[in-house]
């Protein structure tokens, strides 16, 4: 991606607020994505803050923390009540979120994950305050049951007032366009990435926990290939690479997946990848690097047998170091966090260049046209309440009296190299 003029980018510094219920010390794909993207955006010259809820048993981790390279993290004192998400009170998060956004002179709000109540609410607050918003959807959702109908309607309301949406795969884009009834041109596809060189910095959660792991374990027992297939579950992040390179084959049995970082990590460690053909998985790796199987035991076993047979062709019945190296080389440059950051930055610029804040009247009218006769009115009521609350807060705590946060001087920060700068 050499033809991007980096100077051009640095000239337009923005302060970006990443918002999600899911962040370190929680582990997972969304958490990794936010952290890596934030680091790369910082190295591109932007200022990034992360807003999440308090963590820990007695929410010991709350308040402000600084992470590597001046990444400022706000652990707001909201308690998670279900699945690490805050209570969806819609309005009650506004006073604090408004304080943070004004204090940090935030220019753009980027929410992550449709499951995150905090992200959804903050996107609404940001729009009420006249800020542009971007949303990244990390997961796939069905349409058939009552819970998905409700969640999809909520997403419809939130995204109808979001400037641009990012999805991690084409399948995920189709899914989000249908769920939120969005125009597909408002959705960009930017895949996830992995840090192919510096595994000690990356937090991995390898697919293979929960009920799906049992299915896989049964299959492994039945075939008697315990020594050939490694099941990681949740492995401490610095040990992931060590675990992966002990094996020859990486078997992924996910039943649904928007992108699947796990197979990428497997391939990057040089493993022969066998995976179920679901969701966005077939988009991730070129067909010569992955064996796709139908999501049932026989088909997966067939794929696995083929992979084992290929391994046995080596001189000592195992794959050779050259094989590992070749595969690693072919994967390492496809998905990099720097690439993700540059592409995300494009989205930000697009949103910021779209002109000043939309007139409130248009925003409100948009709910009625985009969210249907009943849902539209409900969302409209909440948007109006939010506006009224902002007006009240402006009387009680005028924006001018909120002192700006300290901006760290990057040159004085201990210069730790990030994955982005290495390349």
């Amino acid at each position, binding site marked *: 991606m050499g033809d991007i003029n980096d100077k051009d980018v640095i000239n337009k510094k923005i302060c970006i607020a990443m918002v999600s219920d899911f962040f370190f010390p929680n582990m997972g794909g969304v958490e990794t994505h936010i952290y890596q993207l934030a680091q790369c955006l910082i190295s591109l010259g932007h200022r990034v803050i992360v807003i999440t809820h308090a963590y820990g048993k007695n929410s010991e981790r709350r308040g402000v923390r600084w992470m590597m390279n001046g990444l400022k993290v706000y652990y707001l004192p909201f308690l998670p009540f279900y699945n690490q998400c805050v209570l969806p009170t819609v309005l009650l998060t506004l006073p604090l979120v408004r304080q943070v956004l004004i204090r940090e002179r935030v220019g753009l709000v980027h929410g992550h994950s449709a499951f995150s109540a905090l992200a959804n609410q903050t996107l609404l607050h940001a729009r009420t305050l006249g800020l542009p918003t971007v949303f990244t959807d990390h997961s796939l959702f069905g349409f058939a049951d009552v819970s998905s109908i409700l969640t999809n309607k909520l997403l419809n309301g939130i995204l109808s007032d979001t400037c641009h949406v990012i999805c991690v795969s084409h*399948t995920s884009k*189709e*899914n989000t366009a249908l769920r939120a009834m969005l125009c597909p041109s408002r959705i960009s596809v930017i895949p996830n990435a992995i840090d192919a060189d510096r595994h000690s910095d990356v937090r991995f959660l390898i697919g293979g926990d929960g009920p799906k792991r049992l299915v896989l374990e049964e299959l492994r027992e039945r075939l008697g290939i315990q020594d050939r297939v490694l099941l990681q579950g949740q492995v401490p992040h610095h040990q992931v690479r060590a675990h992966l390179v002990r094996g020859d084959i990486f078997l992924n049995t996910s039943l*649904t997946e*928007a992108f699947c970082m796990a197979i990428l990590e497997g391939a990057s460690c040089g493993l022969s990848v066998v995976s179920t053909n*679901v969701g966005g998985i077939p988009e991730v790796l070129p067909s010569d690097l992955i064996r796709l199987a139908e999501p049932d*035991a026989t088909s997966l076993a067939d794929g696995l047998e083929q992979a084992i047979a290929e391994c046995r062709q080596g001189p000592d019945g195992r794959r050779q170091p050259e094989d590992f190296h070749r595969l690693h080389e072919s994967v390492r440059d496809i998905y990099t966090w720097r*690439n993700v950051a540059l592409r995300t930055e*494009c989205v930000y610029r697009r949103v910021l260049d779209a002109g000043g804040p939309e007139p409130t009247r248009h925003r409100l009218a948009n709910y009625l046209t985009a969210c249907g006769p009943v849902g539209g009115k409900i969302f409209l009521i909440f948007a109006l309440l939010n506006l009224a609350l902002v007006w009240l807060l402006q009387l009680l705590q005028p924006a001018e009296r909120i002192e700006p946060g300290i901006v760290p001087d990057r040159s004085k920060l201990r210069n730790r190299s990030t994955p982005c700068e290495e390349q």
Partner: protein
Amino acid sequence: MHSGSISHRKCLHKPSWPERPDNFTGDDFLEDLKRNLYVKRHSLLTVVVATGRVFQHFCSLCLFVQAYCLMLQGTLAPETVLFGLGMLAPPLYLAYLFCASGSADKSDLSPMRTAFGHCRLLLVLTAFTLMWSPLLKSLTATISTDTIHAMTAFFLTANLLFHDYGGSAAIVSKSFSLNSAVFAAICLASRLPSSLHTFTTVELALFVFAFWPELRRNMSVGLHSPFQPVLSLGLTFLLNLAAQCAMCFISMPAACCFLLLSCFIMLICPIMFVAMQAQKNNIHGPWDEAVIH
């Protein structure tokens, strides 16, 4: 698009950016979208027969309440009801045994053993009801009639809602529906003049809400005849006719309402259901969670 050379196939691994913007939407967008893959469409006949199953129970319930009303009026003597039950029960029980022998879920017990067990149960229930009927009669006597009627309506509605019509819904609970019906019967029994009336009401409730639904279920499961839908519809018609006639004895306006209600449930509702099937719109695609076969 200036990038005609780049394949429009869905792939993430080929570097398409920045030549092609990330929000580019190709012709392949939603190409794997499938509609109504597993949607089952029902014919009018099957819908009417299935509605009939619900309506049969509704009519039986109406007949029970009508018997109570007629006994309260004095038009119907409890002895007549008991005589009718005595005449109806043996042939219906034989039909029950016949259907049970044809149904798939046969128990290990021989038909004789099953019949013996049923007879013993019948004797125990009858003896107990007979013994306790003076007490049952006074059990809810101090409660005002309005409250009794409200409670009866509430518990009979619960019976209708929780009854097992042959579907597999989470709401179905045989024991709860039977218990609420028996409780409604005991509520009603307190308004009747004698202990014999109480006995009759409870026995009738046991017949209508415990035995009769089992017989109907066995008939729909155990009879493997091409005429099964016709038989089921015939039974629905007979029950409806009986309930309609009984209603005429009680009140003409109520009978008219009942006729309209019957038409609505048995004709208009199924037609609406079948017509609205065209509205079914279920979407499937690669984002659906895979099902392990």
